[in-house]
């Protein structure tokens, strides 16, 4: 670990703000900038900006407690996928009861929570306690992801919901890998003011009117002028 912190970080530490807190707060602008870059330039939408940012930090927290970068990915991804699966199942189950939206969502979240508990217990039974050792907050964040998923399913259909979930997972994994990258952590601790650069980047992204990378794929027949229909 680098011990050379910037004046700002030292002052924060002197006032009793933990180093981890300072670092994570400084990482947040980077994470949200990565998410906007993915949206505006690459064209990966995910569930807005809040959900992927939260999932990123959930990954981070799980990884930090398990003391291993790869465990963060392993546990985080499995909880993520489990939440999506159980969420879909319970939605199908709840469909026939025709309940109002919020009560229905509450039941879906309850079912996901119970399922998560079951998974943790089964893990313990097979002496795989790594996951059970993880603090509850990142897991709770993952569970509430189900609302975003189910409401998208209702609004835009299952296909879009699954695509958006996968995109959220990908962006979160990439952001997680970046904020766990030691050279970046040291850099941010040494030069915290460089975080302000993300504002400039976002101003640039906010004016960007070019095609998104994914749109080159979406419109590839149009761009290549290949008309599949023979006239």
């Amino acid at each position, binding site marked *: 670990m680098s011990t050379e912190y910037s004046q700002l970080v030292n002052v924060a530490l002197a006032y009793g703000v933990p180093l981890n807190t300072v670092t994570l707060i400084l990482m947040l602008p980077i994470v949200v900038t990565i998410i906007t870059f993915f949206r*505006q330039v690459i*064209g990966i939408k995910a569930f807005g900006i809040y959900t992927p940012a939260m999932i990123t930090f959930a990954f981070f927290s799980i990884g930090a407690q398990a003391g291993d970068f790869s465990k963060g990915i392993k546990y985080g991804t499995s909880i993520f996928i489990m939440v999506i699966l159980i969420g879909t199942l319970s939605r199908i189950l709840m469909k026939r009861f*025709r309940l*109002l*939206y*919020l009560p229905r969502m509450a039941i879906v979240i309850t079912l996901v929570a119970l399922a998560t508990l079951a998974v943790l217990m089964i893990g313990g039974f097979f002496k795989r306690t790594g996951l059970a050792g993880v603090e509850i907050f990142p897991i709770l964040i993952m569970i509430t992801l189900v609302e975003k998923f189910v409401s998208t399913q*209702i*609004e*835009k*259909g299952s*296909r*879009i919901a699954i695509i958006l979930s996968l995109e959220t997972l990908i962006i979160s994994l990439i952001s997680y890998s970046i904020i766990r990258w030691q050279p970046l952590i040291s850099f941010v601790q040494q030069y915290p003011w460089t975080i302000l650069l993300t504002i400039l980047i976002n101003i640039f992204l906010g*004016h*960007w*009117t*070019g*095609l*998104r990378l994914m*749109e*080159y794929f*979406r*419109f590839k*027949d*149009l*761009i*290549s*002028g290949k*008309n*599949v*229909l023979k*006239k």
Partner: protein
Amino acid sequence: MFSKSKNILGMNARNLIYIRPNNLKSAKKLADDKLRCKRVLKKAKVPVPRLIKSIKTQEDLDNFDFSTLPNSFVLKPNFGFGGDGIMVVYGRKKGSENVWVKANRSPVTEDYLRTHIKNILDGSFSRTGTSDVAFFEERIKLYPGFKPYAFRGVPDIRIIVYNRVPVMAMMRIPTEASGGTSNLHRGGIGIGIDMATGVTTTAIQYDRVVEKSPRGLLLSGIKIPQWKNILELAIKAQDVSRLGYLGADIAIDRENGPVFMELNARPGLSIQVSNQEGLLTRLNRVEGLKIKTVRRGVALSQNLFGGEIEEEIEGLSGKRIIGTVERIKIIGRNKKEIKIEAKVDTGAGFTSIDLDLAKELGFSETMEEYERIYLEQGEWKKLENLTAKERKLLFKKVPYLVDTAIINSSHGTSYRPIVRVKIIMDKKMIPARITIIDRQHLKYPVIIGRRNLKQFLVEVK
């Protein structure tokens, strides 16, 4: 590849360049409020589905007598979007009171409707998730011509209107995959439409080209009835909604013809794939035009954005669209042809060409002889005093000269010879009487004047 991608409108450009500055918040709010839209459009004499009853509160719901509902109707959330929460009811179940059926024959009871309305009032389908209003409206009956293509729903026509010109259109048909809604995200089929004729072109599903409907019918070449009328409705809707960049959704009712369904403030981009053309080119072409009447907007749209069937339509209206600078071909004496860029100038009466060009076209003798006589007469003002007959007599012996003319232009007054040539402009052959003048100091050696522009509409950039 790169140059073609420049014509495509992407999400970023759509939001930043077209939606943000053109669709103001108040206009967007109107578009999201279906009931207000209905009122506003109706007032502007745009036909909309008839409102049966709106239910605003739980009290309204408790007091509503379901037996007053007709046999078929549509139940909608007022602030719903993407077609969510819409329930289409096709008929009353025989022999039972207050039980209806959906398109898939599943029964709809009064309780079922009540729960659905409660969900709507609760805001389950609203864009913002806050409380909403439910309403019943008349169901659009499928136009027989579309019957073979649609699965359990009614196809609609999406038209992008910008600057009072319909720039692109697409027919959207519900499929089994889309569950009877014409939502493209859900697997509905979109078919491009030729703006001139209202005939369908290329079909797409999930942004990829398909040739036939799931039932094996060819999707191109479907003729949409009352096309001009539909285009007019779209422009009128833009005028009342003040959405500068509008997606107008229009359906066709078996009995009432075109009916306006919805205003869309954020129309999607797939329409480009189904038309096999980018929107940016078209949007740029209508940018800044002053369209005074609805009819003018329709005519421009048909003329500018008609594809292969363009010739036919231009033939009908008799006018072709040209720019202010056109590449033309002039055919002079002895079939001498010269290709050249000409300035189209509606401020000029006669078409005029430069002296050197006239010589190249085989009028050297004419000019020599004309100038000799002209100089003999001295000042042109003396010529002016002669009668037309006297002048004709004077220049009678000049070869290939048809007439002479006094031209008042911004450069002063001049006396010019007139000769006869043929001009080919935008593939049209125009026999023309043109004047010859020294235009060496000007950028274009040819000016096309009003006399030879009768078959054209000039588009000013």
